[in-house]
């Protein structure tokens, strides 16, 4: 796995144009997720269904990931995978058109 610093993973255009002065890190995180996953029609499809069927606070979800995000992408990744595993173990699930997903997965899709 690449241990490159976060800045090298994020295209300059995103990091320079989308950062908001009042919540720069949240916007930076959102931009990174867009780059990583936003191209995927499938992920957006699942996210749209989840948003339609659930009340979803995107800002709250993104803020909850900030501590890990500040450390770096590996830490963010570990946080996401840990949450997914925990979700499955604790029955914190989202069923989208029959597919059983962890709530974290569903919220990640819905945040795009």
């Amino acid at each position: 796995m690449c241990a490159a610093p976060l800045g090298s993973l994020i295209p300059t255009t995103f990091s320079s144009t989308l950062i908001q002065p009042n919540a720069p890190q949240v916007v930076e995180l959102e931009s990174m997720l867009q780059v990583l996953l936003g191209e995927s029609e499938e992920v957006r499809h699942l996210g749209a269904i989840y948003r339609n069927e659930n009340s979803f606070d995107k800002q709250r979800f993104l803020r909850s990931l900030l501590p890990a995000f500040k450390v770096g992408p590996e830490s963010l990744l570990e946080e996401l995978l840990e949450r997914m595993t925990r979700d499955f173990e604790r029955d914190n699930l989202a069923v989208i058109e029959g597919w059983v997903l962890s709530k974290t997965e569903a919220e990640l899709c819905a945040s795009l």
Partner: protein
Amino acid sequence: MFVEAREVESNKELSVDVCIIGGGAAGITIALELEKEGRNIAVLEGGGLDVEGESQNLSHGDITGVPYFPLIAACQRRLGGNTNMWGSWCRPFDEIDFEKRDWVPYSGWPFDRKHLDPYYSRAHKRLKLRDFNYEESYLLEGKSELRVLPLKGEVKTKLWQFHKPPVRFGHDQKEELTKSSSIKIYLHSNVTEIEADETGENISRVHVASVGGHKYFVKAKVFVLATGGIQNPRILLASNKVQKQGLGNQQDLVGRFFMEHPHIHRRGLVMATDAQTYPALYNTDSQYNHQVVGGICPSEELQRREKILNASITLNPTIRYSAHAEMSEGLVDTMSGYLSDLADLPGKLYEKAKLKITGKRTPRAPRLVLDVSTRQEQTPNPDSRVLLSTEKDALGVPRANLQWKLVGLDARTATTLHRNVAKSFGAAGIGRFKLELEENYPDDLSNWDPKGSYEGIEGGWHHMGTTRMHEDPKQGVVDGECKVHGINNLYVAGSSVFPTSSFANPTLTLVALAIRLSDHLQKAVLV
């Protein structure tokens, strides 16, 4: 030796030590076990050595409950019985299957699994199986392609073992049976009545007839009824000259509690995270290559906590995905893309960075989509039963009427298992599960008509429970030794004595019980 019915003098009364009615797995096993003691044994087989229309037609009957296989096909009337069409799926019942479970009505055997273990071990020899050992370390030794999935949570892998080709009882031992001086197998010899004496406490003889009209009688010290879970109650109910409600039926239990193993095929999908290393163990085809198949089953803890029955699922590469083009544009493809894009996040972080540098996109890895098939225990249910039809067969015996009935607990067992397998696959990172069964059936649903997503639910050709075993005559047709309550010399063998059914296929357990009954007859009855 083998004897054709027509070779017996008409209306003659034969006299033997043991008369076994039915030449299937149970009947042949008992004959071979008793032969060691030099007993004079008659096995009455209704058919011949092969399928014959006239004989098979005697098994025809009505289906008035949940749709079922035609009885003319479900009850093989020929030497070997239904072992002529079985696949050798073998696995002992679990310890919990023998327990009285407060959430499973009418559950509990007169003995525990440990009591049956020595008989299971001997049954393995009869079925040409490997040692009586179902540990992964034993059955999967040296088979790396059959590794066990690292399941998490409250589901676990359990194994079946097989012998290929499957043992065909009577045929595989034909030489031994032909040479035997103490066993005579009478072919085309259908029992039309079990005749009790005037007290109803002893069987004096059975009436035998062939389709050609030949008739004779067999008198014995002991009679063993071993014609399967549909024909056993049929014969008892039809033998009603002395006991008007049928033999052994004082408590109206004969024919009740019919159980199958409900099979729900191709309901549920699994998208495996890693197609390359996904093990073949859970594919039912591995029985042919490896003589072993794995099922994913609820743990005892899960069964106790969720109050569900025992069950299993197997996973075969889907035929639906490749067969229907529209699904490639549906959610299956969505999930495949999703797993490519999300579940492999570690690689993606790296790939995305590289993408910006090289301008190339790494192709998505191939995904493996698996169909989920469920085989499960059935709730014991007195309304699920075998009755006598108003129609009679060519020999004048009322035909069987099968009313197979399911209840809410049967439905909830499948859906609960599916949800827990979904959780396990997610937690272990080995895939995602698509639920396709309708949920939320109440447990107190006493007559569940499986429609919608359950359309096509079927049995496994396993007929159990219709002469159930219980020490209390008010709760069972036979006692713990498989003797019919209230009758001194009539025993029942086969899966019709099972009080509960597990999810495991019945043959190994019924052969073990047949060996146990043989021991009992030798030690306590034929002395």
